[in-house]
């Protein structure tokens, strides 16, 4: 009896520990994801330059356009540099570009209005997919075992596990 209680306590402790460990891992990951060093102008130039597209029609990110004789990218890069020199914040700079070149200058949908849907849908798909897989796994687990031919008897739990271990050992390739 005492052993059973100790086992239960150990098992509860183990479950709590695992839960806490998972929480800590998720928290650490989130901190890493959303943390960032305070960017200087060069880092901001790189960051903003990668958040905008070149408008010459090459379909490339602004700082990656190397279109020979591209009129747009040089002009846009200079505009970005002068906006940074003026001390504008990131949102203001991006807004200025949108006003001049239209919304397609931003390389990814903004997190406003209908554009939010672009960001949400993949995660909705992932959540629905996980729910579906969990449902399928549960349904399959509760499915009755297929009928066996006469004379075949499946051994009970522990014995079956032992037989499996033995088979695995003997076919360990």
């Amino acid at each position, binding site marked *: 009896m005492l052993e059973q209680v100790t086992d239960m306590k150990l098992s509860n402790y183990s479950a709590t520990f695992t839960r806490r460990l998972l929480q800590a891992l998720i928290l650490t990951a989130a901190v890493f994801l959303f943390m960032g060093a305070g960017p200087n102008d060069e880092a901001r130039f790189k960051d903003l330059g990668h958040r905008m*597209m070149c408008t010459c029609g090459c379909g490339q990110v602004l700082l990656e356009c*190397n279109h020979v004789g591209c009129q747009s990218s040089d002009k846009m890069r200079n505009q970005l540099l002068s906006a940074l020199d003026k001390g504008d914040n990131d949102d203001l700079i991006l807004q200025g570009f949108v006003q001049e070149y239209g919304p397609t200058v931003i*390389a990814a949908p903004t997190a406003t209005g209908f554009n939010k849907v672009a960001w949400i849908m993949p995660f909705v798909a*992932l959540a629905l997919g996980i729910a579906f897989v969990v449902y399928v796994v549960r349904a399959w687990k509760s499915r009755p075992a297929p009928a066996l031919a006469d004379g*075949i008897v499946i*051994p009970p739990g522990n014995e079956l596990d032992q037989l499996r271990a033995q088979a695995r050992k003997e076919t360990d390739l």
Partner: protein
Amino acid sequence: MAQIGSFALLLALVLSAYSFGAGLLALFGRDAVSARLGETARRAGIATFAAVVLAGFILVTAAFNDDFSMAYIYHHSNRELPAAYKFAVLWSGQEGSLLFWSLLLAGYGFVLRLRYKTDQRLFAYASVIIASVQVFFLLILNFAAHPFAIMQGSLPQDGTGLNPLLQYPEMVIHPPMLYLGYVGFTIPFAFALGALIMKYPGEKWIQITRRWTMVTWCFLTVGVFLGAHWAYAVLGWGGYWGWDPVENASLMPWLTGTAFLHSVMMQEKRGMLKVWNMALIFATFLLSMLGTFLTRSGVISSVHAFAQSSIGTWFLVFIALTVAVCTFFLVKNLPHLKSEHKLESLVSRESSFLFNNLLLLVVCFTILWGTFFPILSEWVQGHKVTVGPPFFNRVAVPVALLLLLLTAVGPLLAWRKTSIESLKRNFLFPAIGSVAVGAMMIVFGVKPWEDPSYFYAVMAAVLSALVIFTVISEFLRGGRVIAGKTNQNIFGAMLQLCRRNTRRYGGYVVHFGVALVVIGILGTPFNKEVEKEMAFGDKINIGPYTLVCQSYTQDDNPNYGNEWAIINVFRGGKQITTMYPERRFYKASGQPQTLPRIYPSFREDLFLVTDVYLVYEGKNETTGRPIIKAHLNPLVPWIWIGLIIMVFGTVVALIPSTVPVTVAATNPVRTPAHVGAGD
């Protein structure tokens, strides 16, 4: 010439229409007349191949003969175009590439129809379905995108030339590989749909199509990677993947095809996921068609969309029809696809395949969603938005990392149920090794808390190491068992192990290649670049390298004029190579093109190999000096090495296994339960 080509195309259409119609009629009957009709349909299918080959041959011959009376040759070739690119004219434009699609499909159909004795009834169904796809392409070729159209007015002296972006050696092999992949998925699709319609008993159709699917997947893999390499070596922006709609279009069928290759094992081994596998192969075929639609329709702007026209409507109608037919038969014959087995444990190979499929499909959905969101936004908001690399990197990369984790864990799980003890035993060494890799990265200065991209890089390194160590431990574990029983050395034993179960160990080699590809990609956050106008003797310092401009000059040949710089590359005060970044001006098309030069530092850094990547950006018109952009791209060469290993693994998996595993049992197991990791 053009008339013969047109006749060949028309003949091919008539033959394939006959192959489809007569084949379909023959499927309804089981008497001798139906059998004879079916045989004529099969032969008509074979003859279609001959007719399409003739059409293709005529188009290539016209390119070599500079026959500019044909509009297609005028628009895609010129007299001075090198011979290899004249051959590549076949897939350089809209009409030619559709003819090439048709040619490859006819080729696949030809092989299939020759091997019909494997299972005459199933092959007859597959043949009819292939003929229907062939009819679609030949209809477009004959009535919407005719490759043998004649030029109006006076005969031009020379053509307008091939797009400069396409004048690169890889363009001679990249499109055929990609198309072999796209077109090839028609075969497993045809077998799957055929098996569904005829309620084919058992899983034999999967065994029949397994090789087709793997070969096709291999071609698509090579095609996708060659496309990335072409972008890297030609577009000159220093990257290889820009999440361009056409790149995305090639990745989507690859993802669903990969999911199919995994989940189909569950059907073979356990009789499960029958509906799912049908849906996956249907989706793969439809996504291949969608890729062609995206490249050809002009509905979405792309740097790769070399040909655009109104044939998009044809594709939309065909895709809609295919969806309707597939859905109808899937619903109608649903009871036939009922699963036979139950799932015993969440910790099993079956579960890992389910989650692997889920993640692959989520990545595929994300790409599809991101590719089409601009159109949706235009409908809803009245204006387009751009969905570019920042979106895909933020959404798809975390899911891809989860997938990598499953790639490592999956092979360690046995079918039906895995004991925690065996998982611990098999997982311990790879887990310790991979954590050590992550720790080493941090010790050597990578700070994952500074930037999300560094965090992803460390995670990718840890998970890639986990995959690699898992594969190595699996080989060692099996090798040791064989070595112990046969007294061979461990390498001989591992080779024997591989030959005994080529499919399983070939798959592991593919996983190893995937891990190397990820290692190549994870170097991206550490890229460096410097741009500078360079006079004689000027230097650029980038990373451990010093680039010295020795000279700059220009040249001329009948096809193009060019300017280039001669840059000596030093490291540690010692010259290691000379590079010649170049800019060309193609005469026929009047278009300029940069040609970067790449030096992978294998001799200096074997494992942390880095590409020195130089681009001749242009010339300062005032000073006459070249503007050179230097990139330092760490680890990129591992991507191409990873590809070679993936292809090698696929080839291994295609080789039939030699001998079944026979191990003497000291205490025979009483029940016939099938356990073990399997493949």
